[in-house]
Structures are given as C-alpha cells and as structure tokens.
C-alpha cells in the first residue's frame, strides 16, 4: 500500500516545537506539568513507533489471527490502565476485561456483519484500536464516578437498603449517573462534530487526500460504532463491579460515617 503523503522524521521533530511551547507555558504558570509532558512525549514516540511496526507486520502477514491477538493485548492493557483510574472500586480487572472485550468484539463483529468493512487487517486493526481506546476511557470514567458516588452517597444508599431494597435497587440511581458520566463526553463530541471540532479519522483522511464525502461517511460510521462500544463498555464495567460494594446480605461493606 502506498501513502499519498510522505512525512519525514525531520518534520516530526519540528512538531516538537509545540511541545517545547507547552513546557514553557507550564514553567511560566508553575503548573508542574513538565515531567508529565516529557513522559507523554517519550511514551508516544516509543509506543506509536512500536505499534507502527506491529501493524506493518500484521498487514504484511494479512492474518486475522494476528489481528485477534493484537486486540486481545489491547483489551488487557486497556483493562490495566482503566483499573488504575478507578481505585475506589474494588476488583475491577475482570469486569474491565469483559467490558472491553465484549465492546470490541461486538462492535467489530457488527460492522463486519453489516458489510461496512471487509474482515481484513487494514480495517480491523485501526477500528479495533479506536473502539477499545474509547471503550477504555468510558469504562474508566464510569467506574471512577461509581466509586465516588458509592462513597459520597453512602447514607442515601443505606437509607434505601433500610427500606428492604435490594443492593441492585439501592445502586440503580448511582449506576445511572455512572453510565451517563462514562458516555456523555462522546455524546457531546458527536453533537458538536463538524461545528466545533473535526474528528481524527476525517482529518486523517482529508490530509491523506481522500474525497471529503468519503471522509465524512467513514467518520460517521466510526462515531456511531464508538457510541455503541462506549455504552456497552460503561454498562458492563459498572454492572459487573457495583456488587463488590455490598455483602451477600445486601449490606454496604463500608458503612456510612456516623
């Protein structure tokens, strides 16, 4: 496959000028972000270069088994990353694995089954990466909110249990708010897409010289696929995790402060 635009390493290096600007602003405003920006830049270079070689190898092999292996690795790393952002929720690793796995497989399966994409590595790898990345963020945000709410609203939840409500009934308002938190960012960006910002896929296609109509259509497909996958991931991650806050006798494990 040939690319319609050629990017030299010098051009990539030149773009680091903006990173230097970000570091300078951080120093000026004493935001203490220089170290984080440095780590982010190094990690992005290493990770994207490595994944570039991996994707090239998978494209060369044209193997669906390798695609499945890559997606499985992304699901595991996504679950590890999301777990770190939801520390107040106990035992989230397995729920996150299930949530990201189901979100990824069902979304990819659907777009292939509907004939939107051919079951080929050059479609499945980039779409799978986007789907799992967005699902990871949604699941992490939803779980983070779940953990905060279960602590902050413990009195309200226990007052509901005190009426004879089940753990599920008592947690339902909290689960609803957690699901909204996990999905609202993508819903909002979908609402404003084309007005306030141009999404990445469309920008990438336009830069690569694609017809704007094709770029828009592909972007719409991906946005809708992402909406489905973030909803699946947020629902599954919270639904499989909330029970760990309760005992089998429908008691809060951590009682509200007296």
């Amino acid at each position: 496959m040939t690319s319609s635009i050629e990017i030299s390493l010098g051009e990539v290096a030149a773009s680091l000028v903006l990173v230097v600007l970000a570091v300078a602003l951080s120093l000026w405003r004493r935001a203490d972000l220089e170290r984080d920006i440095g780590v982010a830049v190094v990690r992005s270079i290493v990770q994207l270069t490595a994944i570039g070689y991996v994707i090239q190898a998978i494209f060369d092999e044209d193997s669906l088994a390798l695609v499945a292996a890559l997606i499985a690795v992304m699901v595991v790393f996504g679950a590890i990353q999301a777990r770190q952002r939801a520390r107040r929720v106990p035992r989230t690793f397995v729920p996150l694995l299930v949530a990201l796995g189901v979100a990824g497989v069902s979304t990819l399966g659907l777009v292939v089954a509907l004939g939107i994409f051919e079951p080929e590595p050059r479609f499945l790898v980039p779409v799978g990466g986007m789907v799992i990345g967005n699902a990871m963020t949604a699941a992490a945000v939803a779980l983070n909110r779940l953990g905060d709410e279960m602590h902050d609203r413990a009195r309200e939840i226990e007052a509901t249990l005190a009426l004879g409500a089940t753990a599920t009934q008592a947690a339902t308002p909290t689960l609803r708010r957690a699901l909204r938190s996990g999905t609202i960012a993508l819903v909002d960006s979908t609402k404003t897409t084309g007005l306030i910002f141009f999404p990445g896929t469309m920008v990438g296609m336009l830069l690569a010289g694609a017809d704007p109509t094709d770029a828009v259509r592909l972007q719409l497909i991906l946005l809708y696929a992402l909406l489905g996958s973030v909803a699946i991931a947020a629902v599954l991650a919270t639904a499989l995790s909330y029970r760990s806050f309760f005992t089998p006798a429908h008691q809060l494990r951590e009682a509200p402060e007296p």
Partner: protein
Amino acid sequence: MLFELEAVEYSRSDALVLRGLSARLPAGASCVAGPSGSGKSTLLRLLNRLADPDSGRVRYRGEDVRDRDPLALRREVCLVPQLPALLEGTVEENLQFAASCAGREPDGGRLLELAGLDASFAARDAAKLSVGEQQRAMLARALAVEPRVLLLDEPTSALDEAARDAIEATLLDLRHRLEISTVLVTHDLAQARRMAEWVVRIDEGRTVEEGPVAEVLVA
C-alpha cells in the same frame, strides 16, 4: 420480647463500638438512650441487619436475625436514619420507590397525612424541602413499606424545638393509629421520657441500665 441482644460485639475501623452488649426491647415504644458515640446508632443498624455483629446474637421475636431473609426483615423492621437521605425526584417518587420494594402500591395522600404533611407535598422536589419536611418525607417513605416496627435514629436531632415537638406528636399519633412498635434512639433523656415506655441506657458500647422508663429515668 421484640428484640434481644446477647453479648454483642461490633467493631468499626478496628475500634470496638459495642463491647459485649446485652439488652432487651419489648413490643410497644422502646428507646435506646446514651451519649454521643456510645453505640446507639450502631445497635439500631444491627436490629434490621444493615450490619451484622462480629460476635453475639440479635434476636427478633425469638429468632436469630441471621436466620431470616434480610430483605423481608427490613421490610418488616424499617429504619429511618438520623439525617434525611431521600432519592432524587419528587416526594411521590420516593414513596413509590419504597412501596415497590415491598411490592405495594402507595396511598400517597394517607402516607403524607400520617407523617404530618399535606397532599401538596407529593409533587414537591425532595431536594427542595426543609430538613424537617425531609424528615417527615423519610417517615412517610418508611410507612409506605407498611412495617410492623419502626427504628428511628435521632429523628429530631437536626430540628429546632418547635419542629421537634411536632415530629414527636406525629410519632405518638402514628403509634396509636397504626399499632406499630417503635425503637427510638436518642441522646435526650427528656425525649426518652416523653416518647417511650421502655428504655435501654447504654454507654461506651455497654448496657448501663434497662427497664420501664418510669423506673429507670426517675426525674
């Protein structure tokens, strides 16, 4: 005996809250009185299994509460917490939620009237009520489950004197009209005298004294 506690120990964050506490609470109007931090609210939470003791037994009508279904027990023995904690939405939605827990249809007007609120409160946003009104809505919500026993955790501690007197009058009226038993937790011995026939005085997680109010709380 309605409730019996036998050598109950309960710890929280590695601190012992109840230290081998034994007590009896008969049917009717009982009261658990003691200073702040004495373990009163913890004791109340053990009665309908919002928590279980580390050791010892809690019996309800002669049966260990751990042998009963916790959900059925809580619908029969309902707890109203110290601070109002209503769900988002209207008062009516709160009543409907509570009634649905027990598989019932709420009679909103009657429930509100029993709790000392008029019917117009049904459509009010629960978050916009005063603390006293919220406490009454909590009471109405508990009554929607049609319990046989009401556990009341310092129901007037956040209220001024006039609101306290009004809630006390409502609770006394309620007990006679519905013939339900009440277990009231309070730090106020004068309130215990006004509201209860039987009192258990506790301090530092142990029972100090128990018996008829007229004998234990001699003015």
